[in-house]
């Protein structure tokens, strides 16, 4: 007996010679891939016809935040030189991404920053000193994440992405109108957690926006050694979500694209992957030597595409970059920096017994023993 003669085998046609077999049963979900693919070029607003449509108030808000953000970055870097911060990964050059990510969110939404994104957290309203706790080294997360809905700054790359998905999913299950925006670098997209997070988000249609800041490098490793894809935004179609490519130094463009993604998520339209093409102007951190792996010429080329300059051109074109405006903006930024410097110059209050707090809701027996030991040691030190 051939298989053809088996019962059921001829369901889709007789066994007669020349008969065409049926195609595979159409049991697969069908999604049109076309709308999920990103454009070939990063979306831009500034320097294009779209610029005219940007509200001046928004432009000024973005500008003020960018100037403040840049100042925050230079101040934090200065604090590393003064030994007040253990380390600082600067987002200079990437301020547009940091600021736009913060501004598109509602109060009830959640931000999931990576270790480089203290500025986004600060732009969302977090106290800069609290945001810098991790990098100063007096504790890990320096703030109550619930207060401003900012998840802990995340050092293990891409591991915060599934957290964002889970939180957004939980909020949706509860019927809460909450969107999560999660930030990751180009290097972080190579981690398995990136893949798993995007897949869960798409399957669950969770209200999450993934913002990849593609700044060209993962420490010393250039994008070409990180991926062979046409763009990182092209990964989206493989999860069944839209991928958007945007100029990461163009604050209004980011604001628009991220804003749309957030709205889409809020409406129940599911997650979006946004790739922002930008550049890290400083070394990876103050401890890094960027001249080992990239040319000054490349850095200079990007200096010509500075996110603040881009907005200032448009402000100038609208005659809004008045000396009074400029000095007021600058002053506000200086004030923030001065206050930050001053507060960071004070030694943080430290209690070594904190080591044993919050390991568990209630300390185990052995933790009680160990905290007694440390207390005795410290008392003995004091006596000496």
């Amino acid at each position, binding site marked *: 007996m051939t298989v053809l003669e088996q019962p059921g085998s001829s369901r889709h046609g007789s066994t007669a010679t020349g008969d065409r077999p049926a195609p595979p049963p159409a049991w697969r979900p069908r999604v049109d891939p076309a709308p999920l693919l990103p454009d070939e070029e990063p979306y831009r607003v500034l320097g294009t016809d779209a610029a005219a449509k940007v509200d001046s108030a928004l432009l000024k808000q973005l500008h003020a935040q960018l100037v403040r953000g840049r100042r925050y970055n230079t101040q934090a870097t200065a604090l590393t030189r003064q030994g007040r911060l253990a380390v600082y990964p600067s987002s200079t050059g990437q301020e547009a991404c940091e600021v736009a990510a913060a501004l598109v969110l509602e109060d009830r939404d959640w931000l999931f920053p990576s270790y480089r994104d203290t500025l986004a957290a600060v732009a969302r309203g977090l106290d800069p000193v609290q945001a810098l706790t991790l990098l100063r080294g007096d504790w890990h997360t320096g703030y109550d994440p619930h207060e401003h809905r900012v998840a802990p700054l995340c050092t293990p790359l891409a591991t915060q992405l599934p957290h964002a998905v889970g939180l957004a999913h939980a909020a949706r299950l509860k019927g809460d109108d909450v969107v999560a925006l999660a930030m990751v670098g180009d290097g972080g997209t190579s981690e398995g957690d990136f893949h*798993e997070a995007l897949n869960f988000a798409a*399957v669950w249609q969770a209200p999450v926006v993934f913002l990849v800041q593609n700044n060209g490098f993962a420490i010393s490793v250039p994008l070409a050694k990180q991926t062979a894809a046409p763009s990182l935004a092209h990964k989206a179609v493989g999860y069944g979500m839209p991928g958007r490519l945007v100029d990461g130094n163009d604050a209004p463009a980011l604001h628009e694209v991220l804003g749309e993604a957030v709205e889409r998520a809020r409406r129940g339209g599911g997650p979006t992957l946004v790739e922002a093409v930008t550049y890290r102007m400083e070394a990876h951190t103050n401890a890094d030597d960027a001249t080992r792996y990239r040319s000054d010429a490349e850095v200079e080329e990007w200096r010509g595409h500075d996110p603040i300059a881009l907005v200032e051109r448009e402000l100038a074109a609208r005659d809004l970059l008045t000396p009074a405006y400029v000095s007021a903006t600058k002053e506000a930024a200086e004030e923030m920096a001065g206050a930050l410097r001053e507060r960071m110059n004070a030694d943080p209050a430290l209690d070594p017994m904190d080591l044993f707090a*919050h390991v568990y*809701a209630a300390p185990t027996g052995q933790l009680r023993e160990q905290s007694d030991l440390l207390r005795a040691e410290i008392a003995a030190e004091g006596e000496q």
Partner: protein
Amino acid sequence: MSTAVAAGGTTATGRKPATMAQALTRALRDAMAEDPTVHVMGEDVGRLGGVFRITDGLAAEFGEDRCSDTPLAEAGILGTAVGMAMYGLRPVVEMQFDAFAYPAFEQLVSHVARMRNRTRGTMPMPLTIRIPYGGGIGGVEHHSDSSEAYYMATPGLQVFAPATVADAYGMLRAAIASDDPVVFLEPKRLYWSKADWSPEDPAPVAPIGRAEIRRPGTSATLITYGPSLPVCLEAAEAAREEGWDLEVLDLRSLVPFDDETVCASVRRTGRAVVVHESAGFGGPGGEIAARITERCFHHLEAPVLRVAGFDIPYPPPMLERHHLPGVDRVLDAVARLQWESDWTEGGSGGGPEGSA
């Protein structure tokens, strides 16, 4: 302790005996019914009810949002559960088998275990991670690992390993109710063990962090947990014939660890053997033996011995019986205790009752 009964029989109370698997299912059900923030998630936990059927019926009763099949990605499962916990839910995650929890190791160690500490208590992780674990069921490679050493060595995690039907229910309820993360190790080969236990009237169990004396004795203490408890009880019965009256102690939770009960027993008996299935080297037995010795040195008439799985990758089904610590290996260790005690200078030399 639940009374072990023969399969199919009825018990002293005249009730149909329950399996550990049934008790676990019931614990999940009751927790979900009582607390709407409890969510069960994992591979095949929905319609199928899990490959061991522990989540059977939950999706039907509570809906797929409360008991949901996830994509096949353990880091993703645990990572999204972390996010759900951040939003106030109490996720109960099922890892399909011991070795398939390893992809989630980074999430477990770097986030689940530390989140409360990192955030000064503002972001607790009330997560339960259920892991069917250990061997003895003829599983092919990567289906029989005893991975508790990894979890014990990770501050911030609690590690539970029930060995009885009543504890399976009571401890799983406690795990889900705990505001700290629990790695909940379910001994696969005891899933179908039975006891006189009723879901309508679940016996209260000892609080978490308390070891239980499953069999009182005076000659030496067998210290164990999870799948090795029945082995130790059987060994204690067999040892009786040789004149030894062994105490059998079920740790129940490895973290928190009950130094008090363990040390009280060892101080009484003067001798101890730690028994577990996990590889000996770097396994839980080292910690346990070391703690006991630190605390009870002057009461010991012999070194604390360990009977454990060999220091090898878990063997294939046809060879696993040679690997698993069985009654004979436990009795040999007990005999060695005796030999060591005789050696003790100034020791009481107190061997088994009625020996010599």
